[in-house]
Every structure is written in C-alpha cells, then in structure tokens.
C-alpha cells in the first residue's frame, strides 16, 4: 500500500487491483468486480466475470472477441471525458496494442494517470502513445532495467524479413513465435509480404480478423489448418503464439528455422534455453529509457510503479529525488510475460 499522505486519494491499491472508491470501479481488476475500466484486451488485464467493462472502442471489440459477444462493454473514445461523482475520466492512446489506453482521472485540478502497458516506439497497428501531464503517475515497469534498450523497430522488421528470405531461399519454413494479440499483427504489418506466403496459427488468425475489422491493413494470411500439403510451408512465414511451441502442431513444419519476437529476447539465455535459432528484440512495452523519459515528461510528483522491475525502478527514481513507491499487482510481472 503506497504511503502517501494525500487525503482521500482517487485510487487505492486493493486485493482486486487499483480501485476508485469515489466512483466504485476497478482498473484492470484481477478478480471479478462489478465495474471494470480496461486498459487493453490482453488476458491478464481484461479478465472474464465482471458486471460491466469500460474500454476504448477497438479494445471493446477485442474484449468481445476474447470473452464472447454478450459481455457488457461500454465504449469510450480516446479523449472524451466521462463525468462521475466529481471525477472526469478519459482514455488516451497507450501505444501498446490496438485499442490500448491510459486512464486519466481529474478531480479539482488533481490529475492521475494510469499508463496501463505502454510503448513509445512507432507501431502501424495502433494509435501512438499520448503524453499526459499529471500529478500522480501509475506506471508499468515490465522492462524497467537499463539492459533493456530496444533497437529501432524498422531494423528489427528488416532483420525478420531477411531471416525469412534466407530460409525461403533454402526452401524451409520460418516459424515465428509472437504473442497472438498485438505482437503478431504488428509483425505482419512490418515484414515485407512479397517474400512469400504467410500462415497463421488459429489463435493468431482470429485476432488478425478482428484487427482487419477495425480497419487495420494487414497482408493476406492463411490459417495453417487450411493448408493441404506440408510442402506449402516451405518458404512461408508461420506466425504462432509461444504456447504452440513444442506442441504436436509444430511437426508439420519440416526443417523450420524457429524464432521468437519479444523484448525478452534481449537476453541470450531466454533464447538459448528454448533452443531457438533467432530471437528478435521487439516489444510492445517501453524500454528503460522510454520508461524514464515518460515519467519525467509527465511532470508527476508521485509515481506508483507496478508490475515488472518495480523495486529497481522505485529505488532509481528515489535516488533522483522523486517520490516513488512500488505497488503490488497480480499481472504477469517479471516473468517472461507472454504479452511482452
């Protein structure tokens, strides 16, 4: 529990997540609650079982794709304010995945911003991060260590294409593991589709469809299940979620070169213990510099640091004279989060 001497804070940390007592809603609760404000549609942030959900329109679409068409989701467009018991609530692009949002709360001139998961790098499949000024910032810290320094996404995409091209020239499939929501689509939008055919795992394909429905332009893809012969995969790029790794499903890709696209690939050990051929450093989270720049530019006087390397980021901020505390969460945290 943060130890700030602010009377009557707008948000507090509870067993179910960040809670706004005044308006009775939770942000990304990790237990079923009556009212949930959702920053983005990844499984550990948008959980099933809540009475109602509030999210940006594209996010609402993805929540329905994941949790079913009957969930009660209220849409709130970026930048539009909702007035509730003296609090003005608005959502702003977080640049993490399609429909991802930061939550801004304002009451009597006091501004709080919850970043949710965010990144500062460009991504053609979602709206870019909007920098917000605030008094209290609740930030993630998934990659909050200085060893995480992202290369230019363009360079990474070029590397992926070059890897694909080389395998295709040898007549082999390129099997690329990437989280099915967000990362997979970002890759599809970034590689050179003239290199060869693109196949997707079923879990990826359904989200690709949802992205296309939202007007995101992606190259043509085919579901792996639709392929008639094993030979169709030679020269193809196959995009699959990390969970497909090691499954019987993979046997059809004879002689495949295997790669993983994730911020965790910055560390060789993460790639080597999976016996991957390549690890592409591509993350939908801010790196160390992106995190610190964002915190500084927000002008926040108080910083809550959530899931990730919270203890390290907090100590670093404190040494710089900022009032920072670590807030505990039940998000995937410092493990190799699938949505990294």
């Amino acid at each position, binding site marked *: 529990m943060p130890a700030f001497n602010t009377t009557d804070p707008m948000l507090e940390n509870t067993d179910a997540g960040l809670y706004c007592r005044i308006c009775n809603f939770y942000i990304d609760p990790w237990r079923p609650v009556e009212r949930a404000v959702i920053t983005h549609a990844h499984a550990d942030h948008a959980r099933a079982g809540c009475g109602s959900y509030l999210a940006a329109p594209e996010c609402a679409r993805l929540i329905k794709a994941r949790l079913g068409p009957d969930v009660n989701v209220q849409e709130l467009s970026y930048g539009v304010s909702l007035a509730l018991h003296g609090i003005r609530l608005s959502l702003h692009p977080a640049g993490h995945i399609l429909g991802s949002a930061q939550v801004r709360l304002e009451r009597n001139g006091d501004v709080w911003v919850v970043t949710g998961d965010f990144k500062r790098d460009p991504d053609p499949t979602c709206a870019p991060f909007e920098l917000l000024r605030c008094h209290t910032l609740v930030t993630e810290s998934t990659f909050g260590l200085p060893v995480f320094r992202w290369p230019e996404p363009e360079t990474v995409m070029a590397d992926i294409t070059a890897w694909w091209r080389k395998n295709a020239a040898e007549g082999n499939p390129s099997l690329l593991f990437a989280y099915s929501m967000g990362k997979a689509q970002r890759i599809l939008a970034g590689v050179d589709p003239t290199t060869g055919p693109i196949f997707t795992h079923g879990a990826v394909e359904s989200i690709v469809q949802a992205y296309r429905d939202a007007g995101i332009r992606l190259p043509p893809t085919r579901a792996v299940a639709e392929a008639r012969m094993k030979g169709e995969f030679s020269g193809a790029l196959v995009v699959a979620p990390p969970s497909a790794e090691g499954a019987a499903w993979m046997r059809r890709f004879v002689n495949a070169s295997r790669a993983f696209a994730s911020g965790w690939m910055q*560390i*060789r*050990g993460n790639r080597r213990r999976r016996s*991957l051929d390549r690890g592409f450093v591509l993350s939908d989270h801010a790196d160390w510099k992106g995190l610190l720049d964002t915190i500084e530019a927000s002008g926040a006087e108080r910083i809550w640091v959530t899931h990730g390397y919270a203890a390290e980021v907090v100590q670093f901020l404190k040494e710089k004279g900022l009032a920072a505390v670590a807030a505990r969460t039940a998000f995937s945290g410092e493990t190799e989060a699938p949505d990294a």
Partner: protein
Amino acid sequence: MKRFAQLYTELDQTTRTTTKVQALIAYFRAAAPQDAVWAVGFLMGRKPRRSVPSPRLRRWAAEEAGIPGWLFEACYEVVGDLAETITLLLPPGSGDDHRPLKVWVEQRLLPLRELPEDKQRENVIAAWRELDPTQRLVWNKLVTGGFRVGVSQKLVIRALARIGGIDEAVIAHRLMGNWDPVPAFWDRLLSLQTDDADFSRPYPFFLAYPLGAGLEELGATAEWQAEWKWDGIRAQVIRRRDQVFIWSRGEELVTGKFPEIRAAARNLPDGSVLDGEILAWKEDRPLDFTALQRRIVRKHLTPGVLKSVPVALMAYDLLELDGADVRGRELAWRTAALEDLLCRLGDPRLLTSPKVSAASWSELARIRDDARRHGVEGLMLKRRCSPYRVGRRRGDWWKWKVDPLSVDAVLTYAQRGHGKRSGLYTDYTFSVWDGDRLVPFAKAYSGLTDLEIREVDRFIRRNTVERFGPVHSVKPELVFEIAFETIRRSPRHRSGIAVRFPRIARWRTDKTVSEADRIETITALLNASQGPR
C-alpha cells in the same frame, strides 16, 4: 576480431550442426593462419584465464554506463552472464575496429593481467569504446575467462578435417596436449604427413555413455569385460623419451600434482601410454573422492599431504606399447599386454583395474548393487573385441552406475541460474526435517524438465518469503526426490552431512511437506553405505 565475432554470431544463431560446420569452414578458409590458430584454441575450449577481476569490470562498466553499482548488480542478476550484462549496458561503441584477432589477443588481451589497475581500466574501457556490441561480447567473454560458444569440439574437428582432407581422428590427436597458437601450428594441424607426433601429446580419450538399453541387448555376457567404475581423475600417463607426462581428461598437464605416479612411471619402458583413473589410495582401498579433491587444489604438496592422501593409478587400458599406437588392437589383447607390463614392474602405485567376473547378467547386476561398499560408482562394461575409440561413442563401452540414493526434500531457497537458465530461478536448496525445523542438506540444479522449471520458477516468484541478496527463501511447499551418489559426514554443512552429485530425480507432487524425509533417514543411509574398513 570482426570476422571472429561474426563467426560467434553465426554459431550462436543456429541450432543446426550442418550450418555450424559450414560457418566454421567458411571462417577457417578465409582467416589468416595467425588468427585461425587462436580461434581454434578458443573454440576447442582453451579459453584464456580471467585477466581482470570481476568486481573491477563491474565497477568500470557501471561507471561507463552511468548507472549506480546496485543497479548494475540487479541487471547482472537478471541477465545471468557478466560479459553480456556489460555489453547490454554500455553506450554504443564506434565499432570501426578492423584489427585482426591475433592483435587483439596478443597485444590487448594477454598483457592485461600484468598491468596495474589504472592501466587495465584504461585498456578495457578503450576496447569497449572501439568495438561494436557483438565484438564487445566476445571481448568481454575473453577478458572474464568465460568464453564459450555453442559448438562442440567434435564440430570444430569435423570442419578442420574437411578443410584439410584429413581424417577426424588425426585432427583430434593433433589438437591434444600442448600446442602454441602460432601460424606454424596451423600448417602442422592441416599437414597431410602423419608421422608428426609431438612426444608429449596424449591420445584423445575414449569416453563411455551411460547404459541405456537392457543388458540382454548387449548379447552374451562372455563378450564383455566388466570392471569397477572408479571415482577418481581420468588420466593418461605417457612415458616417452625419458620423460613422463600425466594428462587429465580436460587436457591439462598434471604431472606435477602426482609425483608418486610420475616416479613409478619412469620405470615403464620407453614408448608406453596408459589410460586409467588416478585415485587417492591407501591400504588397498580408495579414499573418499573429496580427499583427492582437497589434495588437487593445493599449491604445494607437503610431505604431510603425500603421506595422508597417497595416490595410485588404476590403469585399465594400454594405448601405446614400444612406441607403437596399439589403439586399433582388441581390448582383450590390450588388457593382457597391460597386465603383463605392470606385473613385470610390480609397482604398487601402478595398479591394473581388476576384472569383475560373472557368469550371467543377473549375477553382474547383484555385484553392481554392492558397488558402494567397494568405494566405486558402479561397473564399466567393455566389449572384448573393441578397439580404443576417439571421443564419446556408443556401442563398445558403457558405464553402468549403481542406482543413486535418494531422499524426499523440501524446496526452501532459490537463486537465479546462469547461461541458458539466466533469469529463471533454477538453483535450488533442499531441506529435510530435523525435529520441527527444516535444515538445508543439498543444493541441486538439474533434473527438471523445461516445463517444470518454468512452473517452479513461477511458484518461487509468488512465494518468496525473504530476500537475502540474490537468494530467495521460499515458502516450504514443494517436495522433490533428490538423488545422489555418495554420502559422508561433513562438519562444514549445517545438516552435518554432504552428498555427491545431488540432482532432482522427480517432483513429488503427490507429497506434502510433512511427508518429506527426516534427517534420521539420511543418517541411516550414511551408516549403511560405509564399506568395511
């Protein structure tokens, strides 16, 4: 250096052996001999010793990266590899260096050790600034003495054999023992002339695989020779041109560490090479392996040590006789010749490993069960008609260890692993009950599947009770069966016992913490496994 770093990347970016061999061949074809010899050495595992103490490197890297020391340490804990941590933290370097590997090694790396600290700092930081990230990683690994790359000696030998059009066994033999990384060695290495033996050079060791299949599949018992599997230091003793050389399996010349064996081997006829196990040996019995270990690490062998931990060579093969390579002869012939040779010598420091005779596999299995009481690890099975082969091969030699001892213990502490397991909690401490307290009794790192490792890792993250630096104390909840080879009393361990080669046999998800073993169970094992003295 640039080209070598590129080779490092190519080897690192594929899991396919054919691609690795291709990359090696391309490198060796293009490289100048002066660089190629250094590369061969590094790839074969002859890494230079650490040239700068680790705390200095950490301090300088933190300064260069502009971060506090504690943050550097936090990063190191997550990355699990010092060279890599430094590489990731440093600001980008110029990367416009084109000096060859030889220059980097001979002029920059090797002199580093002898320099005063301020000069070391200057040189290391200058190198960081000149190199690009991949080169830096290679440089850091050379400086920290931790250079390793995902390529086996076998593959390096295969690549060299293809380039030279020479048999792999010849290349393997030429790479044994001492050689200087000079261009002249490159010519010798790939020379088609085969009468080139350097007289100190050992033969490549023949290594056994653990017996996997059933005994019946080996065929008739009579076709096999059974011997005890000794727990000592595998060594080759060479007697040539009035000199004695003792080589360890790690290709270290250890002659000076075993003066007794050296003295005894002087009486061997010229042109003899024995393969065997060096044992701490007293009153016709091996001493505990730890006795030998304590003796090896000593810088000076005092008369006291020589007296309390005397050694002997338990010889089990003959590789050279009267200057002729006899590895191609059948084992039965070599064994007879070895016994004849050592019998004539009659030196108690050069023993022949006794044969274990049994009429059937089942009788042999019974004998093996008793191995612990003889102070051995189990049995070796060797095909009587087999030659002495090169490297680890299946088929003719099998090691058949006695089944390990095991206890059920509770996971109580965890620490992050290194290398392939960096970032994950994979280094565990296990405890057993002593009254109503859990006392740590063994550390184990291996035995779980990747899936289990991840599951345990997740448990540890969620159930950390306290942190002591990198060590996390964990809520006692998970029970594992811990297997180990031998057990002995140890005043230095909190539980009062020490075990050899502990590893995780399986995760006992069916057991609760209260069902884990008690210290008394372990003490009973201790008493049962003490052989007659």
